[in-house]
């Protein structure tokens, strides 16, 4: 088994250029790779497209900034694709001011679109969103008398993931509900960078327990702060 490169966060995000499409794991900040987010923010890369479940929490009154929120606040995105932006008032402000394009996607559809990209499907039929604004511009296909929307795959240049543990081959195991979008995004990006709390030797993970097989992972970053 070949070992994957292990890099500092600053080094790993260097390949991300202005205009890249990035997926970032996490749900309201839980399961988001904070070292990578912070390194990317520091790097100043702009005009990014973000694919993420939500834009986490930004509430300056309570001094709360979680998950990908710092990138939003620093206006790194030209476009955000998410299911929920209600807990980050800056995302809403930028959207209403026309500064950032925001595309809202139902959460299950978002997850499935990412999987479709990673798993080579040209799209899928979902009942979610039929009869709502979500159906605008989409093909409606009837199967056995029931209407479905044809939803298309969603790819990225980079996926930034958070896992609990990796072996040096790049196999990943997640922690509890910090799993969420991470394993799905691992399949759908050209370069997959995983920030992990621990790196063990090849062979130390039980092959029955591995959630993301090493073949999906490009680069490992050790989270030295074990930040949460």
């Amino acid at each position: 088994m070949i070992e994957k490169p292990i890099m500092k966060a600053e080094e790993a995000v260097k390949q991300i250029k202005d205009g890249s499409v990035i997926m970032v794991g996490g749900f309201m900040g839980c399961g988001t790779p904070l070292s990578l987010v912070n390194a990317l923010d520091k790097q100043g890369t702009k005009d990014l497209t973000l694919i993420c479940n939500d834009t986490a929490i930004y509430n300056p009154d309570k001094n709360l900034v979680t998950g990908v929120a710092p990138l939003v606040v620093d206006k790194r995105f030209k476009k955000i694709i998410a299911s929920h932006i209600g807990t980050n008032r800056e995302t809403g402000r930028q959207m209403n001011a026309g500064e950032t394009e925001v595309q809202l996607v139902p959460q299950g559809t978002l997850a499935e679109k990412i999987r479709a990209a990673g798993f080579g499907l040209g799209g899928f039929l979902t009942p979610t969103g039929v009869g709502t604004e979500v159906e605008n511009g989409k093909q409606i296909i009837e199967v056995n008398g029931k209407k479905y929307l044809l939803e298309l795959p969603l790819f990225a240049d980079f996926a930034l993931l958070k896992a609990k543990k990796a072996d040096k081959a790049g196999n990943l195991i997640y922690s509890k509900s910090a799993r969420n979008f991470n394993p799905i995004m691992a399949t759908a990006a050209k370069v997959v960078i995983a920030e992990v709390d621990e790196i063990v030797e090849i062979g130390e993970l039980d092959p029955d327990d591995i959630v993301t097989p090493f073949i999906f992972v490009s680069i490992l970053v050790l989270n030295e702060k074990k930040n949460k």
Partner: protein
Amino acid sequence: MEYTPDKSKIAKRIARFFKSGDIVNLGIGLPTEVANYLPEGVVITLHSENGFVGLGPVPKEGEEDYDIVNAGGMPVTILPGGAFFDSCTSFGIIRGGHLDYTVLGVLEVDQEGNLANYKVPGKLIPGMGGAMDLTVGAKKVIAATLHFDKGNCKLVKKCSLPLTAKGEVDYVVTDCGFFTVENGKFVLQEYFKGYDPDFIIKNTPADVIIAPNCKEIDI
């Protein structure tokens, strides 16, 4: 007869729908409170759309595990026998009809079973999160809402806000009563002590009919 908002009545009534073994997703806010009123002996499973079944109570202060959060991002716990999974599986469970109930908050609900709860154009656009999947996927969709908000009834003839789901609402529980949605009308099944069918019909702009076996409940 005067209206006094009382969210606890809504949560209490909804809790009585469930039987042991049911798999239930409770939305953020008012729906979450339903868990506090489960009848004794009724053991249900709560599904958390961010990726697990077996959602447990809020942890004691200082015992939070920030890798276990609910769909609102707040620390919670997992019960013994619970299981974690990824977001595709979580929404597969939802869409695939494996939830018995979903309980959701309301901006507007109408007599066709349409629900609007994710967007007020030009004002509040938080996004639909998992709500659109939950409404099309769960076997029964319960809309939980105060009957009136700032003087306006939440039960309307036709939603004016962008829809979360079309024709998917089965039950509406307010602090005035419990309604089913049938054939384009709200059907009052129960009215809660302090209100009567006349008051409810007069103050609800939608078409409400009274079920043959409609009864008063002291909740």
